[in-house]
């Protein structure tokens, strides 16, 4: 029996992670080795005891995951550069302060000096030689100004003249043109009016003639029609009257006929009665 189970195998077997031949070998080992078996039983017992630990119930709180993009100030890029520039400026300023650096700009000269400013002797200051006195300058200015003024004046008057001339020329030209135009237009208008009036007259006469012709012919027609109608009416009337007279005559004739028959009947009846009476009287 070369197999000697290790603690690792024991653990693997206890938690069911031993497989195949290893498992079989270990089970065989347990069967043959009472001590190991007891040990294993104890471990199993322990596991069942440990299983009495209960999980604590917990509700997951909301987890906020910020982007955390906000970086601390010292990690901002270029901060190093900016700070180093600021620091070097500070150093320069401090160095200047301690060395008594003085920088001044006056009278067209830039002075960079260290320490106390020495009083400058007036002899050392070489004032520029004045080649022109103020009066001369003034005079020069005055002359140049007057020259300028004169030149301007002459220019101005010339320009004025030119302008005037051109304006008068333009005016003359334009007025002449306008006069011509007006004349033309007036002449043209008189002729046109005459023509227009003539045309109007002829048109009017034409229209009146036409109208008269039309109206006279219409009247003729109308009167003819009227006469025909009247003649027809008269004919009709006469016919009607004739019919009436005829019917009257017919009825009269009928009446006389009837009357004739009646008298005949009466006569016959009278005659018969008279005949009968005569016969009767004879008998009696």
């Amino acid at each position, binding site marked *: 029996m070369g197999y000697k189970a290790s*603690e*690792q195998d*024991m*653990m*693997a077997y206890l*938690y069911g*992670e031993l497989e195949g031949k290893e498992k079989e070998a270990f089970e065989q080992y347990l069967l043959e080795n009472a001590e190991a078996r007891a040990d294993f039983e*104890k*471990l199993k*017992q*322990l*596991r069942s*005891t*440990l299983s*009495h*630990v*209960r*999980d*604590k*119930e*917990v*509700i*997951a*709180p909301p*987890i906020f*995951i910020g982007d955390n993009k906000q970086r601390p100030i010292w990690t901002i890029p270029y901060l190093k550069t900016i700070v180093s520039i600021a620091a070097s400026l500070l150093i320069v300023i401090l160095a200047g302060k301690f060395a008594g650096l003085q920088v001044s700009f006056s009278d067209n000269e830039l002075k960079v000096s260290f320490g106390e400013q020495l009083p400058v002797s007036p002899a050392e200051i070489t004032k520029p030689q004045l080649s022109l006195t103020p009066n001369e300058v003034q005079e020069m200015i005055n002359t140049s100004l007057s020259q300028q003024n004169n030149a301007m004046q002459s220019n101005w008057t010339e320009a004025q003249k030119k302008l005037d001339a051109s304006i008068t020329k333009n005016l003359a030209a334009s007025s002449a043109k306008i006069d011509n135009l007006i004349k033309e237009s007036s002449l043209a208008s008189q002729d046109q009016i005459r023509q227009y009036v003539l045309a109007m007259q002829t048109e009017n006469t034409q229209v009146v003639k036409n109208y008269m012709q039309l109206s006279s012919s219409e009247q003729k027609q109308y009167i003819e029609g009227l006469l025909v109608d009247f003649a027809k009416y008269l004919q009709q009337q006469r016919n009607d009257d004739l019919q009436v007279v005829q019917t009257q005559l017919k009825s009269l004739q009928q009446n006389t006929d009837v009357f004739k028959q009646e008298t005949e009947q009466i006569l016959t009846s009278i005659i018969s009665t008279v005949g009968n009476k005569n016969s009767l009287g004879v008998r009696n």
Partner: protein
Amino acid sequence: MTETLLDIAMMHADNLIARAKEGDQNAQGKVVQLWYKRIYNFGYKFFLDHDMAMEVSQKTFISMCKNLPALQDNARFKSWLYKIAVNYCREEARKKKGNRSLSFDLVWNKDAEDSPNWESSSQRYDNPESQFQQRELSDVLQEALMELNVEQREVVIMKEYEGLKFREIAEVLNISENTVKSRMYYGLDGLRKILDRKNINKETIGYGL
């Protein structure tokens, strides 16, 4: 066991992790919901302290959300997550080293014990007496765990209560699988001795139940 159930859930949640990796906040939230109880309980058993467990869980999940895109293999999510948790636990333990010498009665957060979490978690036991027994036994066992050294304790918690495989624990702790098994063996051995000393055995557990 809840661990195996959770493992099954996690198999289906591969997709969830993939989405969480892509920065889907909803998926990240779900992953947190899924794993928060496990990480909290790991932290609680490690420190036997509610506040510390909360602290570690918070840090772990914030780190998880931040570093999830860097996770190469989704299948290794579990060991990756526990690795983060273990690192935070060790960090907190180092910070609190000064307090390590304190007795359990001081370190042990009595408020956490009386917190409503306990009440809600205990409602599944209908017998108040057994409920009390259960709680007391659980406390004693947790105290026994605290007596182990950190190396053994983290292995025992991960194996016994978090259900990680020896290979996964080796990954978490960056040690060999055999070393993990050795630590487990000696951890269990130590626990047995501690419990013997506390007179916790088959008979005393059965008593009153």
